[in-house]
Every structure is written in structure tokens, then in C-alpha cells.
């Protein structure tokens, strides 16, 4: 067997392709991985081939794994909590990641400052993702344990002029209930509508629609859904979503 480091470039790229495809027998696979460790050009070839073949992986139909696997896995990664530490730092990581990806310099520092957690305990959260594009827009939603207050951080581009985003909870068997208008790019802290507190269950669906300025005049959603997400309650994090 020829050592991959001694091969001409075309052969090296071909070898990387075979490695990614997975046709190398075990000992050649291991030898290739050993060569990979200190060969950035070869690593780049592997990265490119992995990206080229990725649509094959995406073409497979998803299958929900057993709930026990999720519980086992999440229990397995539990770090011992230092005494007195808050068990939840999502707001900090949101500030951190959005700070890195969407904002620069002083703005990021300001955001981290604004996001210093409030003393009350977080009861649940949701991340809402755009349904219509691969943009990195995310709306983060958080409620406190008593389900009285909510915090909304909309890391999103604004809707077309003359429109607002409106957030809804979609309780099963009941009409959507408005949680109010959401301003793009803003962080807002306000009371959760009292009528919605009972609907903030684990896996409750949230959606954001595009509505006329000030929100839907009828109290029911009228525009297209642009973000969707699911509430996760902190006490239930090791359970898996219903089918």
C-alpha cells in the first residue's frame, strides 16, 4: 500500500474521496486517518468531499429515535453543578453567539450587558426558526417559572414595511392565542398574557405570523407563518417530543 502522503495530488484527492465515501478497508482507513492528522491539504480535501456528498445523507427519510435514547444521552452529559450556580445560562449563550455572529465590538458588549440574567428562575424557553429560508434569523423566547413574564429576543430582519411580527401560542384543539407583537432586532421583557399561562406546556407550539402594523385586527392570525418553534420546560428536558 502506498503511503497517501507520497501520492501525487490527484491521487490524494481520489483517496480522500474514497475515504469519505467509505470504501477503504479498515487498515487503509486507519492509515488515512493517521496521515490526516498532520496534513491540512488532505483535511481540506476531506471537508470538500464531505460537503459534496452531504445531499445523499439529506435524502434519507428521518426516523425519530426512541425516547429512552434521548433521556440516556442527556443524562449522560449532565455536568455536576457547582453549588449556588444558576442551572440555566441560555440567555448568556444567546447573547454570546448572537454577539459573535450578528453584532460587532461595542454592540456585542452592550448586548451581553443587557442580557445579564434577571434574578427570577427560568421556567421554559423556545427557539423559533424561520420557515421560509436558510437565514440565520432566530427568535428566542423565555418564560419564568411562575409563567408571569416573558423575554423575547428577535434576532431577525424586519418584515416588509407596514407590517409587524406577531407571536402566537397554538394550543391543541383551541384557536391560536396572541402573545403580542414582536419587534425585529429588539429584546423585550413583558408580562405573559394571563390567558396564555395555562397553554405554556412542554412542547407547546409557537408561531410568528406577519400581520398589519400593531398586530392582527381580528385577534386571529391572518398572515403567513414565518417562524415556528416549540416550548421546552426546564423541568422536562429529558423527555422527547410527541410524534
Amino acid at each position, binding site marked *: 500500500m502506498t503511503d497517501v502522503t507520497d501520492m501525487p495530488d490527484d491521487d490524494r484527492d481520489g483517496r480522500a474521496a474514497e475515504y469519505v465515501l467509505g*470504501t477503504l478497508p479498515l487498515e487503509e482507513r486507519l492509515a488515512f486517518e493517521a496521515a490526516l492528522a498532520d496534513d491540512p491539504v488532505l483535511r481540506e480535501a476531506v471537508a470538500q468531499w*464531505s460537503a459534496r456528498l452531504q445531499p445523499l445523507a439529506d435524502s434519507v427519510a428521518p426516523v425519530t429515535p426512541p425516547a429512552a435514547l434521548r433521556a440516556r444521552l442527556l443524562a449522560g452529559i449532565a455536568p455536576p453543578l457547582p453549588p449556588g450556580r444558576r442551572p440555566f445560562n*441560555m440567555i448568556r449563550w444567546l447573547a454570546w*453567539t448572537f454577539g459573535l455572529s450578528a453584532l460587532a465590538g461595542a454592540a456585542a458588549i452592550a448586548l451581553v450587558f443587557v442580557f445579564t440574567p434577571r434574578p427570577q428562575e427560568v421556567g421554559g424557553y423556545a427557539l423559533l426558526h424561520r420557515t421560509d429560508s436558510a437565514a440565520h434569523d432566530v427568535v428566542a423566547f423565555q418564560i419564568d417559572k411562575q409563567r408571569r413574564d416573558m423575554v423575547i429576543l428577535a434576532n431577525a430582519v424586519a418584515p416588509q414595511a407596514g407590517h409587524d411580527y406577531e407571536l402566537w401560542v397554538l394550543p391543541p384543539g383551541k384557536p391560536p392565542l396572541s402573545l403580542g407583537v414582536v419587534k425585529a432586532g429588539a429584546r423585550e421583557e413583558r408580562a405573559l398574557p394571563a390567558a396564555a399561562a395555562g397553554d405554556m406546556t412542554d412542547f407547546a407550539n409557537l408561531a410568528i405570523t406577519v400581520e398589519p402594523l400593531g398586530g392582527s385586527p381580528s385577534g386571529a392570525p391572518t398572515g403567513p407563518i414565518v417562524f415556528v418553534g416549540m416550548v421546552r420546560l426546564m423541568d422536562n428536558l429529558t423527555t422527547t*417530543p410527541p410524534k
Partner: protein
Amino acid sequence: MTALETLIEASAAGDRVAFAALYDAAAPQLFGLALRILKRRDWAEDVLQEALLSAWRNAGDYRRERGSARTWLTVILRNRALDRLRREAAARLADTGDDPPDVADPAPSALDLAMAGDDGRRLKTCLDTLEETQKRAIVMAYFDGLTHEQLAQRLATPLGTVKSWIRRGLQRLKGCLEP
């Protein structure tokens, strides 16, 4: 699904909540792929768990500029799945001295792939420019985790021929994807 990258970066910072969200977003696709490659539910469950645990431990190695989060996760999953297949095959050979039994494939490697999105359509178009033998060998290798030698057996074709189908097919694929 967007923002897998964000969730991996948060996992790297030790955030279990982000990791749970990553699991919910990514695990079903990865499990589907594991089942497709391994054909056995028990192995697929083991491999999925190993792969995601590895993703949690190595989340700090992920870099956006080196590729998408989906690809990063797929690579981890497929490497684990291939290791499992190679190990099981080696164990069977050591046990009996026979060729590994041919495992029935519940989802035969269909050549009519459902590939969505711009990248998917581009890859499908390019796969369709290959000779049928090249395309079948590549698709079978990807989804069934077969080595050159196993493919040669499966296709009842000499090893050298199968190697060249794959090598030439992959070269042509690359040329087609990056004209």
C-alpha cells in the same frame, strides 16, 4: 433547519439546553441515516448515541468556516457507523472463518434518490451524468457502508473494475459539480 451551527457553538460552551435543542433538530435525520447504513436497529441506536456523545465532547472543534453543522454531524455519524460495520465484519470472520453473511437490506439502495434543495438537485443531476455502473457503485458504497471488496462481491464484478468505477465516477462527479 437553521441555526444548528449556533447550537453546536453553545454546546461547546457547555450548554446542555442548546445540546437538547440540537438533538431535537438533528437526531431524526442522523438516525434515519444510521438505520440505512447499518440495517439493524440496535446497532443504529448505539451508533447514534456514540456519535452524539462525540459531538457534545468535540463541539469545541467545530468551525463554521470549515463546513456546515449538518455535514459535521453526518461525518461523525458515518465514521461511527463504518467503524461498527468493519468491527462486526472482522469479529464474524474471526468467529467462523466464513464470509460475512449478507444482511437483508430493508431499504434497497434506490438509485432514484429524493434529493431536495439546490445542492441536492445539483448532485442528483451530476450523478445522473455518470455511467449506471459507476453511479450504482457509489450510491451502494455510501448507503450500505461497503468496502471495495464487499462491493465487488455484491456486484459479482472483479475488484479492479469496481475500484475504477468508483474512482472514475467520483472524479467525474467532482468535475461536474465544479466546472
